[in-house]
C-alpha cells in the first residue's frame, strides 16, 4: 500500500489537533492556580483538585455513577446472553423484528427516552429513584451488551458442543462448561462497553434523576448550566483521565476497533 504524502500528513496533524484540543484544554485549565478560568502559565496548581473534596455532591454523584454503571451493565448482559444465543444460533420467525427492538434504544433519541421514562416512572412512583435509574440504564446500554455477546455467540464453534454431548455431557454441563466459557470474552467486553456508555449518559438521565440521585455527568451538566469555573474543569479532567485509562486498558485487552465495529485492525 502506498504511503501518505506530505499534504495528507499535514491534514492528519490538523485533524488530530482538532480532535484533541477541547479535551486537552480542559485538562490544562484544571491546573490553574487562579480563582477564575485561565491557562496556567508560570505556575501549576492542584488547588482545584483539592476543591473537589469540598463539594460532596460531585463525590457522591461519582460513586452513584459507578454503581449505576456496574449494576445496569451486569443486568443488561444477563438479559442479552440468552437473547444473543437465540438470535445468533437460531433462525425463527420475528428474528429480525426482535433484533430491531433490542437495538432500538440506539435509534430513539435519548431525549424521547428520558421523557418517556419520566412520565412512566412518575406514574409508578419510581420518579427520581435509583431503581428507576437502573431500569432506564439497562435499556440504553443493552444494545451495546447484546452486540458484543451476539458477535461471540455467532463465532462459536458448535462442533465443540457436539463433541461434549457425544461424550455424554448433559445440556446443563454443556452450557456451564462449554458454551458460557466460550462466550465469556464477548460478555466481559460487552459489559465494559455498556458500563462506559452508562457512565457517560447524560441526556436521558437528566430527565429522571432527582437532586438525591444525580449521576456525575448530570451533576456536571447542571453545574455548567449555572456557571463555568475551574472546579468543573478539574472534575472533567478526572473523568477524562479515568475514561482514557479504561480505554487504553480495553484497547490492549480486546482492541478498540473490534469493540466499536466488530472487526480488528489486523483482521483477526
Amino acid at each position, binding site marked *: 500500500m*502506498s*504511503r*501518505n504524502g506530505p499534504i*495528507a500528513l499535514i491534514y*492528519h496533524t490538523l485533524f*488530530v489537533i*482538532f*480532535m484533541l484540543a*477541547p*479535551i*486537552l*484544554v*480542559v485538562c490544562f485549565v484544571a491546573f490553574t492556580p487562579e480563582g477564575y*478560568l485561565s491557562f496556567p502559565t508560570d505556575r501549576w496548581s492542584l488547588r482545584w483538585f483539592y476543591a473537589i473534596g469540598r463539594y460532596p455532591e460531585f463525590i457522591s454523584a461519582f460513586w452513584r455513577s459507578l454503581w449505576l454503571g456496574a449494576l445496569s451493565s451486569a443486568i443488561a448482559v444477563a*438479559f442479552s446472553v*440468552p*437473547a444473543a444465543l*437465540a*438470535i445468533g444460533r*437460531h433462525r*425463527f420467525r420475528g*428474528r429480525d423484528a426482535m433484533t430491531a*427492538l433490542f437495538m*432500538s*434504544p440506539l*435509534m430513539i*433519541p435519548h*431525549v*424521547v427516552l428520558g*421523557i*418517556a*421514562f*419520566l*412520565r*412512566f416512572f412518575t406514574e409508578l412512583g419510581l420518579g427520581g429513584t435509583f431503581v428507576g435509574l437502573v431500569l*432506564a440504564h*439497562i*435499556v440504553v446500554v443493552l444494545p451495546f451488551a447484546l452486540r458484543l455477546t451476539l458477535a461471540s455467540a455467532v463465532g462459536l464453534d458448535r462442533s465443540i458442543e457436539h463433541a461434549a454431548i457425544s461424550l455424554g455431557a448433559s445440556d446443563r454441563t454443556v452450557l456451564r462448561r462449554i458454551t458460557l466459557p466460550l462466550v465469556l470474552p464477548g460478555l466481559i467486553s460487552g459489559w465494559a462497553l455498556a458500563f462506559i*456508555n452508562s457512565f*457517560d449518559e*447524560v*441526556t436521558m438521565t*437528566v*430527565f429522571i434523576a432527582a437532586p438525591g440521585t444525580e449521576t456525575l*455527568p448530570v451533576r*456536571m*451538566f447542571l453545574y*455548567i448550566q449555572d456557571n*463555568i469555573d475551574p472546579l468543573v*474543569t478539574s472534575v*472533567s479532567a478526572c*473523568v*477524562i483521565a479515568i*475514561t482514557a485509562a479504561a480505554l*487504553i486498558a480495553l*484497547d490492549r485487552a480486546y482492541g478498540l*476497533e473490534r469493540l*466499536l*465495529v466488530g472487526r480488528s*485492525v489486523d483482521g483477526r
Partner: protein
Amino acid sequence: MKSAPYLLSLPALLLFGAIVIIPLVMTVLLSFHDWGQYKGIEPVFVLKNWHEVFTDSYFLEMFWRTFRIAFFVTLLAAVLGAPEAYILNRMKSPWRGLFLLVILGPLLISVVARTLGWALLFGGNSGLINKALVSMGLISAPLPFMFTETGVIVALTHVLMPYMVLAVWAALQRLDPQIENAAVALGAGPFTVLRRIVLPQVMPGILSGAIIVFALAASAFATPAIIGGRRLKVASTLAYDEFLNTLNWPLGAAVAVLLLVALVAIVVGASRLVERRYAQVFG
C-alpha cells in the same frame, strides 16, 4: 425444539415490552392531553398541543434550526472525516492503531467534558480560538461562537466525528487494494484513483455514517444546551424546558414525539435510498 429461541429471548422481550414500548405509548398519549397552569395535566383527548406545534412559527423556526444544524454537522463530518479515515487506513502498523485510538477514543469520553472544552476554547471574546485567529491576522474582531449556531455546529461536529470516521473506516476495510494497484498500473494518477476507484467504493460507508451523524446531531442535547445556551433552542432543549421548567408536559411530549417521528422517517427513508442505490451496483 422449535420454541427454544423464543424462550431464550423471552426475558429481554418482556423487559423491553414493559419499560420501552409502554412508556413510549404513554408519551404519545400524553401529547394529546390537555394542560393548564393551575389545573395541571388533564387526561382528555385534545389536538391542542399538535395544533400549536404545527402552527406556531416559534416551533417551526426551532425545528428548522434543529435540522439545519444537523445538516451542516453531517456535511462537515463527511467532508472532514472521510479523508482522515482514508489517510488513517494507509498508515503503517503502530501509528495506525495509535491514531485510531486517538480519533475514536473521544467517542467514549463524556460529552459534557468534551463540550466544556469547546466552551473554554470559544469563551466569549477572550477565547483561545479568537485569540489565535486575531494573532494570525485572519480576523480583525473576535467572532462570536458561544450562543451561536456556528459554535454549536463546530462542537457537535467534533462530538460526532468518530462515528463518521468509524463508518468510512469500516467501508475501507472491505476495499481490495489490488483494484487501486490495477488502476495505477493502467496509468491512472493518484487523484483519478481516489475519484474513480476509492470514492465510489466507500460511498456507502460515507452515507451510512452520514445517516448516523444526522440522527444524533438532530437529537443532541448536552452540546446545544451548553454552547447554545438558553437563547438558542433546538428540539431536545425545548422539550427539556417544557418538561422541567414550564412543566407543560403534554406540549413537551408533542415536540419529542414529532422529533422521533421525523427522525425515524428520515433515517428509514435515507437507508432505503442508499440500499436501493447500492444494491444495483453491488447486488
